[in-house]
């Protein structure tokens, strides 16, 4: 064998290999297969029937992207997808340049490929700059001017909103009683049109009435007297109180809220402006807790992973009231219906608690009763009370307070009587219960009214008894509550005076049912109606209470301690349509020697105050959390979405609903044709002319795009605008159109050109054949 020097064997060149790989069509096909798989799983996830043998049964959809905490937009902006798209585009560019000669025949392929490259580049620009959010715009506020009050008060027009104003003549209260978005105008030039009518219930220091106001028609404002109709009929004047001015003003929106974002808002209590701290990288779908005992679970078989997070929420504004206090988000719950306090029976301190259930007669309720903290369980103490006795003597003593007692005393004669009041033995015209003489005096009495729990405003309820005293000279109508200092005498229509000292009435409301336990929590006595009806209760056994109601004592403990945690709803009980609207984050703050930690509920919008909160709309929920900083400042916090300023304030001039035959049928969009919002931007110191947006017809104003996204079906008190930009959309459109033309060219124009060329060449050959006997071969 001869020694040979291997010659001409090409050495391996890695750059060449990569270049060859990238310019291979197979590589492009492989990329497309990967893109197909990625897109399918990222979008639909994985679907499978719950039971393999029962394809008609329910199917399960495993949304894979949610396990990676990615939204639809995010999973298609994630690096693996970007990498695939990048390689695919690179491959397409290289293949086109290296393998496809730019000729007339190849023009189509060039157009398709370059169109898709342009589309991809346009998309990089578009998605890189995309801002997408939404903004609710309320239709109107009412400016309230009360004589003697300084600034006009603003009240947003939304159902159930209220305002209280103090003027020189006293207290005024205002409430939105009703909104009718399509009130027909019946008179004048505007007959036949409809307008949005708002009824405001007004209480002035001297009178109560309804003021009806029509948006856009201040001339038709008039007052209505409840039970009597329009004021003009009985008084000759349209307005009962000329000095009270109510007028509609715009309620402009100045910001919009970014889709799928998160932010913490803080302000000092009393401030109106929220200061934002964006929360970057908050998971979208997962439950993140640091320990099992952070939450209560709703199902016994519910599993939960310990998956803590720690996101620093930095200050971005100088006026941030938290200053340099470090804020961390250390937990997130995707679906929590709120906090719940549960009771641990093995506490250290005496805190007797009893759990009782009532049923029958349409009632089916459970209560927790706390002997040392009677109001805590939310039970009306005039119905049921729970006492903790140290000994037998105390038991009897507590039992004696069962049932109410009314004590009436005639001061002059020093005579008093005591009896219990039932709703049945109050005065009733039909039953003819008359006056009863008080022995040894010339007075007699009758109980006119007995109310176990009478609303006296601000959510407070008290028991009230109204007693009439009568002597030959005069009569006194006395209102008595459980608080003797609150007794008053009625002096005619709605006028009260301090109690007349001639008579005294003291009411002890007692309770219908008294429970006494102690020192053994299982040793329970029940007093029903009066101290004489005393029974022994056994835990878990049902007792008949009269009038068809039964009571069961479920538990009784002497030392319970409270534990309050948010509830984490089991995954299968979550309503998928609620998205993240029931989510909560845990905010922890620390500085030297001080720390604070609380779960905050999600807010769709960082509303300024409770007046913007719309009843029964989750999106307009308002529940800020308060916190005392180490320096004594009280602040409020709220977890919501990130905001962007609109370049100008935007007011809703009018919202119109177009309907099909028969008008709007509540809850059925098939009866609606279109939603139309007429908006007015505020620029250069004045309200600009209207811009209109409706379904399929968005408005563009100063580079932002507004489209009709939401509405308020009940009252049309606001519109929900989608707000966004669309930079790069025309580059995308250009790319797609070039590709369309390319396809038509490749499939239909190229063969025609080819056919013409072939025929031309053939004709040449034929001609050549005819002119010369020996022809040179021509290849086609």
């Amino acid at each position, binding site marked *: 064998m001869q020694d040979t020097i291997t010659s001409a064997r090409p050495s391996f060149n890695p750059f060449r290999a990569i270049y060859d790989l990238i310019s291979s069509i*197979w590589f492009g*096909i492989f990329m*497309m*297969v990967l893109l*197909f798989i990625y*897109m*399918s799983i*990222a*979008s639909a996830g994985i*679907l499978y029937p*719950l039971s393999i043998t029962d394809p*008609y*049964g*329910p*199917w*399960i*959809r495993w949304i894979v992207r949610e396990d990676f905490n990615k939204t*639809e937009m995010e999973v*298609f902006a994630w690096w693996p997808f970007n990498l695939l798209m990048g390689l695919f585009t690179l491959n397409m560019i290289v293949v086109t340049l290296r393998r496809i000669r730019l000729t007339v025949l190849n023009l189509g392929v060039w157009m398709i490929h370059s169109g898709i490259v342009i589309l991809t580049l346009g*998309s990089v620009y*578009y998605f890189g700059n995309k801002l*997408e959010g939404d903004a609710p715009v309320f239709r109107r506020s009412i400016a309230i001017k009360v004589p003697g009050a300084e600034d006009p008060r603003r009240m947003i027009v939304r159902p159930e909103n209220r305002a209280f104003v103090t003027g020189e003549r006293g207290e005024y209260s205002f409430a939105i009683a009703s909104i009718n978005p399509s009130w027909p105008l019946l008179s004048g030039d505007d007959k036949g049109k409809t307008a949005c009518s708002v009824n405001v219930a007004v209480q002035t220091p001297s009178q109560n009435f309804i003021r009806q106001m029509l948006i856009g028609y201040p001339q038709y404002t008039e007052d209505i007297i409840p039970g009597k109709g329009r004021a003009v009929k009985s008084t000759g004047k349209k307005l009962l109180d000329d000095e009270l001015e109510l007028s509609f003003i715009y309620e402009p929106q100045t910001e919009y809220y970014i889709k799928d974002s998160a932010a913490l808002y803080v302000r000092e209590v009393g401030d109106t402006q929220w200061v934002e701290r964006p929360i970057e990288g908050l998971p979208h779908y997962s439950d993140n807790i640091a320990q099992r005992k952070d939450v209560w679970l709703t199902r016994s078989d519910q599993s939960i992973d310990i998956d803590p997070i720690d996101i620093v929420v930095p200050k971005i504004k100088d006026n941030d009231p938290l200053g340099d206090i470090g804020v961390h988000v250390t937990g997130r719950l995707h679906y929590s219906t709120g906090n719940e306090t549960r009771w641990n029976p093995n506490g250290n301190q005496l805190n007797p608690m009893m759990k009782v259930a009532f049923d029958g007669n349409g009632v089916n309720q459970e209560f927790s009763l706390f002997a040392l903290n009677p109001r805590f369980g939310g039970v009306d103490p005039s119905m049921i009370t729970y006492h903790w006795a140290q000994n037998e003597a105390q038991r009897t003593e507590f039992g004696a307070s069962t049932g109410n007692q009314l004590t009436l005393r005639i001061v002059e004669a020093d005579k008093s009587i005591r009896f219990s009041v039932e709703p049945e033995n109050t005065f009733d015209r039909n039953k003819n219960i008359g006056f009863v003489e008080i022995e040894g005096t010339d007075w007699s009495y009758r109980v006119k009214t007995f109310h176990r729990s009478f609303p006296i405003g601000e959510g407070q309820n008290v028991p009230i008894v109204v007693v009439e005293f009568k002597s030959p000279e005069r009569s006194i109508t006395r209102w008595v509550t459980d608080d003797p200092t609150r007794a008053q005498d009625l002096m005619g229509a709605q006028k009260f005076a301090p109690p007349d000292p001639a008579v005294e009435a003291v009411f002890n409301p007692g309770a219908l049912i008294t429970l006494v336990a102690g020192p053994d929590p299982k040793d329970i006595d029940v007093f029903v109606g009066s101290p004489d009806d005393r029974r022994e209760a056994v835990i878990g056994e049902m007792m008949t209470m009269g009038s068809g109601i039964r009571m069961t004592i479920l538990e009784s403990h002497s030392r319970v301690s409270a534990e309050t945690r948010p509830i984490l709803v089991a995954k*299968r*009980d*979550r309503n*998928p349509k609620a998205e993240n609207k029931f989510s909560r984050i845990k905010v922890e703050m620390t500085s030297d020697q001080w720390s604070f930690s609380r779960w905050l509920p999600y807010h769709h919008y960082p509303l300024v105050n409770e007046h913007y909160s719309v009843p029964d709309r989750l999106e307009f929920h308002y529940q800020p959390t308060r916190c005392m900083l180490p320096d004594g400042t009280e602040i409020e916090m709220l977890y919501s979405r990130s905001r962007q300023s609109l370049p100008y304030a935007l007011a809703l001039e009018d919202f119109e609903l177009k*309907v*099909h*035959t*028969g*008008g709007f049928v509540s809850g*059925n*969009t*098939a*009866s*609606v044709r*279109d*939603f139309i919002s007429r908006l007015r931007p505020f620029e250069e110191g004045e309200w600009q002319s209207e811009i209109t947006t409706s379904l*399929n*017809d*968005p408005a563009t104003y100063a580079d932002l*795009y507004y*489209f009709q996204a939401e509405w308020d079906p009940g009252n049309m008190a606001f519109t929900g605008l*989608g707000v966004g930009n669309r930079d790069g*959309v025309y580059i*995308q*459109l250009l790319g*797609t159109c070039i*590709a*369309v033309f390319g*396809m038509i060219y490749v*499939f239909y124009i*190229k*063969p*025609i050109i*080819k*056919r013409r060329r*072939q*025929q031309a*060449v053939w004709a040449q050959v034929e001609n050549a054949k005819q002119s010369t006997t020996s022809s040179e071969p021509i290849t086609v």
Partner: protein
Amino acid sequence: MNRKFAVRIVDLSLVAFVAWFAWKQYDQRAPSAEPDAFAANVELEPLRNLAIQDVGRIKSFDSFARGKMKMVGGPYNVDGKEPVFAYLDLMLNPGKYQDKAIIYVKRAIRDDLARAMRESGVSSEAIAKFVKSGLMAPGLYWAPAMQAEFKRLEQDIIRTQKFVNFMSWAMASADAHRLSNDFAVIPAPNGNDKTPWFAGEQLWGLGFMQDGHNHGNDTVGIPGLDDSSKANITGDWNKLVETWRAQDPSGASAAIASLAEHLKAINPSLYPETEKLNLESTYFKLKAFVWVWVVYALAAIPLGMFIAYRIEGALLVGKIGLLVAFGLHTLAIGLRWYISGRIPNANMFEAILASVWFGVLGAFVLEFFARKTNMRGLFYFGSAICAMVAMMCQQFMPTVLKSDIDNVMPVLDDMWLYIHTNMIIWSYALIGIAAIIALLYLRYRLGGGDPSTARVGGAGSLILEGSTPKGDRFLVDEKGSTGKVLDAATMVILELAFVTLWAGLVMGAIWADHSWGRPWGWDPKEVFALCTFVIFIILVHVRIKVRDKGLWTAILAVVGCAVMLFNWIVINFKITGLHSYA
């Protein structure tokens, strides 16, 4: 030998599938109704063409009752009775139906309910019937064991809640009070076209439910209704109730005729033309023409014979059959357009119907260009099969594909509904036709057909055919390879699908940009339309690279069709996105 065996297996399983499907449909046919002298003799015609207001539309009572009764009985007629009769009988004689199996329950929860029925003492025979048909008696609904089961199933939001809701909705739809409340046949006396109509309930009050007579105290009254009209229709109604309950056909017929006349007279300006109402009733009486699939099937048989055996007469018969089917199909769409007053492609039922219509229309156009070639008949055949399958789905899945005519969703009410939607559904039909021809190719190859493929497929092969005496001749040459022809024909359709799908996607993006404020939002429906397109890009490039072009083209055409169907069926029904209405 082996190959032949495999071919047999494939052919036999196809036949077996068709036989099994036919048997299944026969087995699950509606339970036959007992003959009923009253039902047979009462004249319902005037009632059928009564105008009634349903959400946002005035329809014929026949069309309305059909929709309402479908909510009760799902795919079955309530108690085997025709809907107009069933509506009135449920309203006037609710007690009669307490123990009749009329409430439709979806399959997913039938086994669970069967267990509860056993607990409630229902006979095992009746339970077996229920499991098969899904029909349950309203009286059973309130059995404690059933209620407990409903509660349990309702708590599982993800798996079973919606099926319980569906059934509760059926129960509610069969409720006499509800039927009476929905009976909005009285036009507003002084109203315009936006004024809601009044239900008889408003005038006759709830009183009639007990003893069939109007109790003056209960009535709310109808503003603007004059006393004589009021007396007329109240009298007619009371008479109808009385005679209906007494099962007196001639009395009830007279009351119906009189009521219909008096209702028309209340506000003639608001009352739609009788012809239009009549047309709507007729349209539904003809079952919305879904049976046209039979005509398509009858056309497909000779077309298939032509393709297999080249019998010229069969092509002619097939072509005529297809023309008849297409004519009826066009009539169905035209009627629906006229009745609804809007373009009929706004829900799943209409989209499917329109899609295959475009497919057949496209086939006629393509056949014109291919009339002198061996591709003849292939497009007819593919489109006939697609149309047949689509309309069979409409007939056999009436609870999924509802034929009721409703208004278009407001967000769809746009010019782009005409452009984007039609372009996309046309491309879907083309994808379906391509898959049918590709399946023919695969069957041909399985039977030992030669693997040669069209050098230039698609429109190119038609255009370049015979350009020079030495060029490709397989499309006109009598001895041309069947494989080449099938391959070229698949490509003709796929090229069109390729362009229309892409164009449809682009148009959708333009619409989405101004409707939802973004051209592309990675919504599942968008993504899977793109995924379908990706399959076809892969196809086009694989065709460049592989040797057995025909085989890979056919396989990928079928895969593309599967992805398209996944998008249309699974994404629509299992995954909700912004596109959830069509």
